[in-house]
């Protein structure tokens, strides 16, 4: 645990240790298993292509972390990814010559707006975010396919797909760079005052409010950032694999699973963004391992379910004594 747990306060280091440690062990085990299964796995281009594949999930996990750590949920990220890919294809269907930077920027803004709406409904109307984002998921998927008549009408041009598919200098995938940038931004964000505000909001809203934190604003910003992160993921996914009407299917659960694997507690207030992203890498490593091992396609999900439960369970069990010693303001884990 020499890794940068992004905290200064001793208490929070303990907390981060308590919630984050198992994921690094899990990741190390999985990476070792990958090396064992496939000796060529750590050749630079192979490893980079692994990171490239993991990038969308890592970015989604970073976004999801921001929402979860302040005590909310974002179930709409999968729908935002699907909608993003379909909307991009639709835009290119109507304006084939559109510059990729503009389309990407538009998607980012649109993702942010979707997050803004979720955030406003959640904070101003006091609708639980599980419901808000579930509704948002239905609305986005429905609206986008209603608009396109069921399937996207255009194709994504090479320039737009470069970010998800191409490589800088011929060897470094753009997706890896994007992933690093987003990861670094997330770490910096969590180190800033805003990051502390966010964690405080999730830890105890009341205490945060009394200390002068504008909790509603913090939450709304978290939702906006999660939406924007989902839009970035959409650009990468669309770039990586092209137009698909189900590009983001299941991503919401994968992202939440990744964050929880990282030891972040649903309900907020605990966990580090680095661990959340490590959780995403672990999940992707697990997928890759299952694929390389040649586990029957049918049993893959069973193994995945077992490992997720076991990992989270072990994480909770190992450190439960530590946690119980605190006068736990959030009751227990059986949320």
């Amino acid at each position, binding site marked *: 645990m020499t890794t940068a747990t992004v905290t200064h306060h001793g208490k929070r280091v303990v907390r981060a240790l308590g919630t984050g440690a198992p994921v690094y062990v899990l990741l190390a085990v999985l990476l070792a298993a990958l090396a064992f299964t496939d000796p060529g796995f750590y050749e630079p281009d192979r490893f980079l292509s692994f990171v490239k594949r993991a990038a969308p999930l890592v970015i989604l996990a970073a976004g999801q972390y921001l929402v979860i750590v302040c005590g909310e949920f974002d179930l709409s990220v999968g729908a935002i990814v699907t909608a993003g890919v379909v909307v991009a294809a639709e835009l290119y269907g109507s304006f084939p010559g559109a510059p990729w930077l503009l389309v990407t920027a538009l998607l980012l803004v649109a993702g942010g707006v979707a997050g803004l709406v979720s955030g406003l409904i959640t904070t101003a109307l006091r609708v*639980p975010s599980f419901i808000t984002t579930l509704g948002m998921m239905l609305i986005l998927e429905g609206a986008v396919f*209603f608009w396109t008549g069921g399937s996207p009408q255009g194709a994504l041009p090479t320039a737009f797909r470069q970010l998800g598919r191409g490589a800088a200098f011929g060897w470094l995938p753009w997706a890896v760079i994007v992933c690093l940038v987003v990861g670094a931004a997330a770490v910096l964000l969590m180190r800033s005052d805003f990051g502390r505000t966010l964690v405080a909001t999730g830890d105890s809203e009341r205490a945060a409010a009394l200390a002068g934190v504008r909790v509603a604003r913090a939450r709304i910003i978290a939702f906006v950032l999660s939406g924007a992160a989902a839009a970035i993921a959409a650009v990468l996914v669309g770039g990586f694999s092209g137009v698909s009407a189900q590009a983001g299917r299941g991503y919401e659960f994968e992202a939440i699973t990744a964050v929880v694997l990282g030891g972040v507690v649903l309900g907020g207030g605990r966990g580090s963004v680095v661990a959340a992203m490590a959780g995403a890498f672990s999940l992707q490593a697990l997928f890759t391992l299952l694929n390389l091992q040649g586990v029957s396609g049918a049993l893959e999900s069973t193994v995945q379910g077992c490992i997720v439960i076991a990992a989270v369970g072990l994480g909770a069990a190992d450190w439960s004594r530590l946690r119980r010693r605190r006068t736990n303001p959030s009751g227990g884990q059986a949320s």
Partner: protein
Amino acid sequence: MTATEPGRLVPPRAGVRLRRIRLGDPVVGVWLAALTVTLLGWIVVAARGGDFLTTTNAVAILQNSVALGLVAVGQSAVILTGSLDLSVAYLISLGTLVAAETMASGGVVTAVIAVLALSAAVGLANGLIVTGLKVNAFIATLGTAFILRGWIEDNYTGPAGKVPASFQHLGYDRVGPVPVSVFLLAAVAAAVWFLTRRTRLGHHMYATGGDEHAARLSGVRTRRTVVIAHIICSLCVGAAALFLAARLGAGAPWAGTEARYDLESIAAVVLGGTALAGGRGGVAGTLGGVLVLAVLDSVFNQLAVDPFFKNVVRGVVIIAAVAVYARPRRAAKGRPTA
């Protein structure tokens, strides 16, 4: 979304508290909403020259409420205790398969017992993972869902088994205009209502969902309560699987998942005024929520609405309904708490 009480899926908010006098009880609200949707549907369909309030439609609405109703009633029980079950969809699929296969080889009674035993076992597993391993319910039941999925995909290559005609009566017969299966739903709902409202266990469920910490301090065996709630939920899901098997005449690996019973049931529960955080709400509201969704579906059917547009409307309705329930409590925001 008030939650001054801790230990919930959704975190506490500052300075919010239940008012003593609730402006608009959600249960009343959701049944009013069902009525309103029916009336609106009737007007709109009539304006198009159709007839909404026919026996055929009424039967279809009731019939379509049964499967979701059974699941949602079970889901209410877990949500009341502050937990959640995302594994219901795959459990339904597996339940129909087990039911149909057992009926094909053994008898109907054996099949019913087998399905309920399977359900109870899955519920027990969910409950133990949530309470014993302290895995958050969201992740725990998602994990169980994946395990069940793998199990189904590895063992079944499509619809399997055969349900004898004698058992299909459950899915197709009617007493007058009322489908037999509606009585099943009524019986299950009544049983769960009785359990939650009239027994000590029920009080413990509300207490655990309301404030687990406080409940534990006052001597409630919260973990046991959560485990039992999960078993109740899974048993209801088992009943839904049996009903679907009767209706489908065979087991289908996608019976539960294509209909998205996991998220739909949660939506129905929340639509019925049960707080996702636990401790508030109940079966009566849930049934209203199911009815609203079924009536909406029927109206969409009559008007031949684009299926994608349906989702948009459903999303808006769900958010709007919950926003309305939250309104009185929003008004109470900022009142000093004790």
